[in-house]
């Protein structure tokens, strides 16, 4: 049957045509399309990945900022409490120092008073002695009769005075 026997002319033309079509399409047709589709796929994949990474980064940043905030708050609290402690300590120190200084001044004053008292007593004693000598002179001038009796009297009186002053 004519239909089942391939015609050689058509066979040759088909070989040439198909060869040319194949060559053109295999070189300039399909690879371009497939390459571009692959590239687009890669591009989409990359974009998705980038978006996911960006999202993750954003979440990280949020978390980090929260962490930083919490840290800052903590730091703030710590600094505040430290400052309060320092303040308390300074106040306490000052108080102590003031107390000590006051005590020291009081002691000094007391000591000064004591020395001054003693010197005053010594002065008085001297004065008394001078006065006594003066009195004695006067008495002696007046009554030098009984000298022995007079001297005894003066001594007794002086002793009494010293005793009373010592008390």
């Amino acid at each position: 049957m004519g239909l089942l026997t391939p015609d050689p002319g058509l066979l040759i033309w088909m070989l040439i045509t198909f060869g040319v079509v194949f060559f053109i399409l295999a070189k300039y047709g399909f690879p371009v399309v497939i390459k571009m589709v692959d590239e687009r796929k890669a591009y989409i994949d990359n974009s998705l990945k980038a978006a996911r990474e960006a999202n993750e980064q954003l979440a990280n940043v949020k978390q980090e900022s929260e962490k930083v905030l919490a840290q800052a708050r903590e730091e703030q609290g710590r600094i505040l409490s430290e400052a309060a402690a320092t303040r308390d300590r300074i106040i306490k120190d000052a108080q102590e120092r003031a107390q000590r200084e006051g005590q020291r001044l009081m002691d000094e004053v007391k000591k000064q008073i004591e020395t001054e008292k003693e010197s005053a007593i010594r002065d008085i004693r001297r004065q008394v002695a001078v006065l006594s000598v003066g009195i004695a002179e006067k008495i002696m001038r007046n009554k030098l009769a009984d000298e022995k009796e007079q001297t005894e009297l003066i001594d007794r009186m002086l002793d009494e005075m010293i005793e009373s002053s010592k008390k």
Partner: protein
Amino acid sequence: MLLLLLAIVPAETLKAQNDEAADVDVNELVFGHIGDAYEWHIATFGNTSLSIPLPVIVKSSTGWHVFSSSKLEGGEEYEGLYIAEGGAYDGKIVERDAAGAEIRPFDISITKDVLGLFINSAILVVIMIACARWYKKHPVEQSAPRGGVGMMEALILMIYDDVIKGCVGEDYKRYAPYLLTAFFFVLVNNLMGLIPIFPGGANVTGNIAITLVLALCTFLLTNIFGTKEYWKEIFWPDVPTWLKAPVPMMPLIEFFGIFTKPFALMIRLFANIMAGHAAVLSLIAIIFITVKAGPIINGSMTFVAVVFGIFMNALEILVAFIQAYVFTMLSAVFIGLSRVKGHGAK
């Protein structure tokens, strides 16, 4: 509407012929349209037939002859060459040898099928290059194709991802250009064959020479790049030894399988497309056969024929796609089978 046109145009064409000869030779009509021709017949109005003459290129015993096919019209002889009627070379250009017997010269005329092949190939190349150019003009980052280019991309990817990647296996990238070319080549030729007037209508993929070349390509690709495992499975398959040792039964079957597979590819595509064309033409021919049976029967049969013709054309569009798909898929499967890596590897 288009489908209606598809069915009606050949009807109009044939009606014109009908005026002359009431007795329609359906066989000649159908096979005349299915087969190849030296001119591209479009229509016959009364006694004038409208057809496109095509160049005849023949190397006969007297050397090369190149002339228009219009010189051979109506059985005329030109430079010792004429178109044979009946006999072994019915419808082909022949010459007479010294003994007066018809012999066939070396004939590479641009026949209807060859021109159809050229036109369809040009259409295919233009479409694909246009697509490729679109991609060159539009960087990946900017946009994905829509419309025509998008449709072609979807088609290409459907074949590439589903058929080629799935069936060929590991190194599918090497075979993708051939398989994609085969798919679109068959598809475009199938679809163009369904258009009844000039640029289409040539029964290209329904010609055995065309499918022979396609099947031959698959055959060569399968066997040239076959792995050791593939040849081992042919000549020493994993079957009980008595099936292959003294009498090589299985190896013989497997060996024939090498040839039957591409042969089946060739016949399947050829027969499907040819049968589709024959069915549509036969349905339309019913209109002219029933002319003698009176106007009522003729009218009703015309209606039936047109309805069935539309149905067949719609079916043929589906078949055009399915056959291209099947051809590609089976080629991919055969190539995939020849690339086996041994069962132990799994």
